[in-house]
Every structure is written in C-alpha cells, then in structure tokens.
C-alpha cells in the first residue's frame, strides 16, 4: 500500500506551549481517516502542517514522499464553511474555478478545459444547474458542496476537510457523508471533526487528537472497548472514551 502522508515524531509549539507533541501518523492510499478532537486539541494545526501552511517545530513530515510544499498540487483542501464571506459577490462557477488556479495559465482568463473540469466537479456534487448563481444565495449545505467541488476541480489525490458539517443540519450532514463515501472510491480523504457523529459510519480509521495522537481502527471503536484514553468527556453518539 502506498503511503500518502507520513508524520514522524512531529511536535508543534508556540513559544513554550505545545499544540502537538510527538505525533506519529501514516495515511495510506484509499484511506478515509477521521481526525477527531475537541476545540484547541491541535487537529487544525495538524491539517495545516500537512498542507504546508505551518512547519513543525520538530519531526519529519512527508506527503506523497515529498515535502508538503512540493506536494501541494496533489492535495486539496475544504475549509470550514464559516470562513467564507456570504456577502462576497461571486458566482458558484467562479468559486469552483479557483480550484484550477494552480493548473491554469498565469495571466488572463481560465482555459476552456479548466471550465470543463470545473463543471464536471460541480456535476459530481449535483450542483451543475446552479453554476451561475451567486454563492450567497445558496443554502449552507449547498455552499459546502461548492467548496468540495472547488477542491475536486484541482483533481487531488488527497482531500483534506476541516469541520465540513459544522454549519449544516443532520439530514444534510448524512447526504454529505454519502457524497464523501462515493468520492473515497478514487480519492484518499482526511476529515477533521470535533465529534465522531456520523463520521464513524464512513471512516475506516479514527485518529484521536489532544496534543498527542492515537489511531484506532474503526472496528475497535464500534466494538465499544478502546484502549488508550484521550479525552475527559465521552464522544458524541458513539461511546468512545479516550484519555491522555
């Protein structure tokens, strides 16, 4: 099996304060990995280290066997919905085309092939008919799918998502995970969430983060008995108690 992400003994700290400490993690091709942890546990920091936006204070990280900066064209990112300004006057198609920035020419308009890829990505998330609409007029769930389409437009081999369902209701959330499951047939997925919720039904492994990191196979969790303890509070929906 090919290793997509290898994190080896990575620590990250702001001055004296450790956000991540001695973290080991391997993500294999085809994985659907859920990274779970409470607010401030370091999970978003870990995501940004994989993306190459932050650099570890110590330790090694390889993404597709390269440094994260040099692997950027192989991965794509879906940020939290709340990070996006709803009033920004931009059409759905223009947002998705941003996923083609890295592949398109440096100056002037996008190529027609880029527009084609963008429409294909929109079709994959079932939003092709809304491509001319202004982003702000869409529902929260639709906007989230636009951001997925934008990530898909760059044709990544690894898709990273940060709290993708934090602002949608549970019906939309379920449809959303069904979509990710379908995408997982071709793309490796790493999904960050503050609770297990529906994630547990779809992922094959769970990494619990709270400064340190413990990986569970999903069968261990649904089995009910977990070794390692990471958290003080029980996780939502699934009785998974981790304590560090």
């Amino acid at each position, binding site marked *: 099996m090919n290793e997509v992400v290898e994190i080896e003994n990575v620590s990250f700290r702001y001055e004296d304060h450790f956000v991540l400490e001695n973290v080991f993690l391997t993500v294999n091709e085809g994985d659907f990995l859920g990274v779970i942890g409470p607010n401030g546990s370091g999970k978003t920091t870990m995501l940004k280290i994989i993306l190459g*936006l932050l650099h570890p204070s110590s330790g090694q990280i390889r993404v597709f066997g390269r440094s994260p900066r040099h692997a*950027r064209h192989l991965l794509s990112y879906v940020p939290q919905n709340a990070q996006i300004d709803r009033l920004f*006057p931009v059409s759905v198609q223009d*947002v998705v085309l*941003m996923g083609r920035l890295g592949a398109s020419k440096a100056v002037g308009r996008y190529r027609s092939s880029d527009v084609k890829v963008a429409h294909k990505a929109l079709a994959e998330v079932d939003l092709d008919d809304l491509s001319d609409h202004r982003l702000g007029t869409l529902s929260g769930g639709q906007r989230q799918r636009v951001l997925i389409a*934008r990530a898909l437009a760059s044709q990544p081999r690894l898709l990273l998502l940060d709290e993708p369902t934090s602002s949608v209701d549970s019906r939309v959330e379920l449809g959303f995970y069904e979509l990710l499951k379908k995408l997982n047939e071709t793309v490796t997925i790493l999904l960050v969430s503050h609770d297990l919720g529906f994630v547990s039904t779809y992922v094959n492994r769970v990494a619990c983060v709270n400064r340190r990191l413990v990986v569970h196979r999903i069968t261990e969790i649904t089995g009910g008995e977990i070794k390692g303890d990471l958290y003080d509070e029980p996780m939502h929906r699934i009785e998974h108690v981790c304590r560090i």
Partner: protein
Amino acid sequence: MVEFFQVLSSQSFLQTALTAGLLASLACGVIGTYVVAKRISFISGGIAHAVLGGMGLAYFWNLNPLHGALAAALCAALIIGVISLRAEQHEDTIIGALWAIGMAAGILFISRTPGYKVDLMSYLFGNIIMVTREDVYLIAGLDVVILVLVLLFYKQFLAVCFDEEFARLQGVPVDFIYILLLGLIAVTVVILIQVVGIILVIALLTLPAAIAQQYARNLAQMMILATVLGAVFVISGLAVSYGPDLPAGATIIIISGTFYILSMIFKALHVRVSSRLNHVNLKSNHNNNAADL
C-alpha cells in the same frame, strides 16, 4: 443644475473637471469593488491619509504635489501591506498610527514652506474645478495601468480576496498579489484625491461599490455597476454644486451617501415584501394541493 449644463459647452475648465470625474469613476468602480469585497476600507483609509505627508514634502521641495502624493501612496501601501501580512496583532493600531503620522507630517511640511501658503482645504477636501489638463492625462494613464493589471490578474485578485489560504495552496503568490492590490488602491486614492480630497476619498471609493454589491452577481458586474454609479454621482455632484457655488467634493459625497442609504432601505423592504409574497405563494399552493385532494 441646469446652469451647469448650459455653461458646460462654453467653459473648458468644466469640461476638464467632468472628464477628470468620469475617468476617476472608472478607477473608483474597479478598485472600490475590491476594497468593499475584501473589507479593507480601513487599510485604504490609512493609505489615503498618509498621502498628505508626501504631498506636503513635495510642496516643501517645490515639486508637483501630485507626484509626491503618488510616491507617498505607494510607499504607504507597501509598508501597510508588509505589516498586515507579517504582524497579525496590532495591525489596526499600526495602520492608525501611519494614518495620523502621514497627516501630521504633511501639515508640518506645508506650514514650513516659505512663500505663498497653499490652500490646505483643497488637499483635504479636493477641488475638481482646479484640475488641469495635465492632471487629466495623468489620471487617464493611471486608469490604463489599473485596467491592464486587473485584466491580467483578475482570477488571482478574485482568489486572494475571496480565500487567501486556498489561493496560497493553489500556488498563487498571495503576498505579491495582495501588495499589488494595495498599490492599485494607492493609485486610485491619488486619482480620487483630485475629485473629493483626502478626507472624503474613502467614501467615494466604497459607497458606489457598496451599492453595487447589493445587486451584482459577480465581481465584474459589481465593477461595471460601481463605475456607472460613481460617474452618475460625480456628474450630478458637479452639476448641483455649480449654481449655488457649493464645494463639489462634499456635494458628490452627500449624493453618494444618500443613494447608499436609500438603496439599503429599498433592499430591506424588497426582502420583506418578497419573503411575504413567497409565504402567500406557499399558502396558495398549499390550498391548491388541498383542493386537488
């Protein structure tokens, strides 16, 4: 107002003023759109006010104040750009300080300049009637620079304004594009200072774009609409102020501000009425469905 259009054909200084106003609307509509969409009017205000330092220094050295303004605006854009990219904390404090220091330096330079005292009010509040033919050429040249750069880097500017982080992951040189954008804002500020002066420049930069934002579906539409609105405000401000001899800059801003408020009220009422209509439609659909059964 009628008087303005009657004398327009015979008075070349009014034609020059009108041309300057229309050319300024173009820069104002295109760049104002970015300022409003990316919500950086405070940063733009910092650039605008720091300009007085450059104007004062140029005046002190007996150079063209407009050239001093351009140099100061570009320097301020670079400094503020680097600060806002590097220092996450105290960004607003540093911009506020630069804002005030620029103005204070300008006033000191002007007060120390020997000989005829320039009318400080015309820097602060603009004097479009005094715009010369050379100024118009400079404004036209700067317009061309703005349009060419925006056309070349339209998709990068959009991506950086919408989501800097994602743009960076796509390999866009975000820092460069951001500082280039602030440079274009600086150029626009210098153009608009001719029309409404330093104090009112942010209003002219943001009000037409803010109205346009309520109706546009994308950035390009917003730019076109904001340019048209800016032109309408500048022309009507000139026309209204001419007869009773009011300050043109302030008149332009009052008209823009009034339209902005009216537009907000209109939009709010529109939303309420359309949501009520939807409600009625739903009800009648419901009744129809009930009748079908």
